[in-house]
């Protein structure tokens, strides 16, 4: 049995998502080398824009429960950054999402899902420490931001209201913050980030707060020797993400089948030129210590580009 959602909100979400992408593509001027799963402390030049586009396929399955859940989430994530000063950069993140959940209920396979503009995040990052030397830099930059309830959070289909895990938006105002450290040389780049996201309640549902530690190593594998000018760099990328999420709360009570600890590793490649970057990586779960029958991730595929123009 297949159900799909067709509402004016969904169509409006499509249009808004497309509009956001067009606007961002037109405004994007500059971007920087950075990890694929989190931020960097590298600078955004004053008065300039940073643009990044990433497509993400988040596949979950391996359900320990009889429902045999299978969740597929696509996201097209557009990031626009602006250098307000050499130290302060402001960012906007606009996701366009397509989420489906398959479950077995009463012997029937059901497929439910929704797509549309997701929740927009706005945040600022301020470089509090910078040590520049020939061919290398060390930077420390705290950041703080807010996730807005811009995505539709009340989608429904023939079976009723969709589960929160496939709604394009959460409906909640969620604050987040952290600090990112970057050490970059001509041969390699290391980024590390600690962050916390405090989720709030909406629709009688509250996602658990998220605490993360992220690390990334980018190592220049080509060219081995640098010549004159500005050659393209091919980086081998290795990232680690340690993520802890509290239990969700439904109607004021903890959901015992949610939250837990996960560790991911991402091997990937990134080719960086003066005008553009292409990158891809596969985020694989190394450890998933989830509560109850929490749905485990199979993998997260990421691919994207950045343009200077």
């Amino acid at each position: 049995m297949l159900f799909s959602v067709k509402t004016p909100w969904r169509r409006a979400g499509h249009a808004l998502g497309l509009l956001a992408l067009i606007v961002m593509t037109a405004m994007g001027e500059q971007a920087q080398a950075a990890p694929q799963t989190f931020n960097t402390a590298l600078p955004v030049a004053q008065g300039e824009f940073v643009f990044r586009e990433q497509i993400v396929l988040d596949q979950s399955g391996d359900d320990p429960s009889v429902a045999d859940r299978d969740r597929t989430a696509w996201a097209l994530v557009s990031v626009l950054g602006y250098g307000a000063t050499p130290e302060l950069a402001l960012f906007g993140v606009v996701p366009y999402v397509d989420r489906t959940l398959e479950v077995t209920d009463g012997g029937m396979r059901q497929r439910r899902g929704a797509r549309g503009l997701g929740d927009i995040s706005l945040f600022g990052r301020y470089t509090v420490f910078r040590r520049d030397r020939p061919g290398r830099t060390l930077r420390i930059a705290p950041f703080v931001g807010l996730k807005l309830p811009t995505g539709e959070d009340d989608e429904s289909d023939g079976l009723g209201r969709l589960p929160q895990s496939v709604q394009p938006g959460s409906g909640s105002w969620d604050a987040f913050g952290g600090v990112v450290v970057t050490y970059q040389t001509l041969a390699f780049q290391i980024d590390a980030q600690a962050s916390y996201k405090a989720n709030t309640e909406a629709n009688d549902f509250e996602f658990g707060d998220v605490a993360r530690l992220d690390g990334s190593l980018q190592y220049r594998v080509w060219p081995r020797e640098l010549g004159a000018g500005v050659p393209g760099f091919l980086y081998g990328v290795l990232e680690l993400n340690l993520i802890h999420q509290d239990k969700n709360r439904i109607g004021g009570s903890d959901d015992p089948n949610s939250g837990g600890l996960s560790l991911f590793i991402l091997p990937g490649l990134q080719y960086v030129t003066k005008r553009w970057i292409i990158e891809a990586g596969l985020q694989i779960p190394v450890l998933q210590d989830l509560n109850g029958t929490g749905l485990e991730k199979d993998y997260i595929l990421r691919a994207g580009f950045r343009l200077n123009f």
Partner: protein
Amino acid sequence: MRIRLLRASIIAITLGLASATAIAGAHQYRLRVDGLACPFCAYGIEKKFNATKGVKAIKIDINTGTVTVTMEAGGALSEAQARQIVKDSGFTLGSFQTVPGPAGKAGN
């Protein structure tokens, strides 16, 4: 025949003098930019300098962190100006020098 030869000589000398004047008038500066370590960041510096009035050309050598700025004839770049542009790009000016030679000119 002599008149033609004389005319050609005058034209050649005039063009030669004009060319030499143009070269002599084109100031060139060599900057060392500290903190520059990736190609994409280099573009931000290039863009900032190219948006600066009087800049004719810019060449970046990422391996040495060197940025060579060539000014239009009669144009000049001060160290303070270069420092500010590099700072606005998010980096630090390590050194600033005027390039001697045909395209450069002593002093700044």
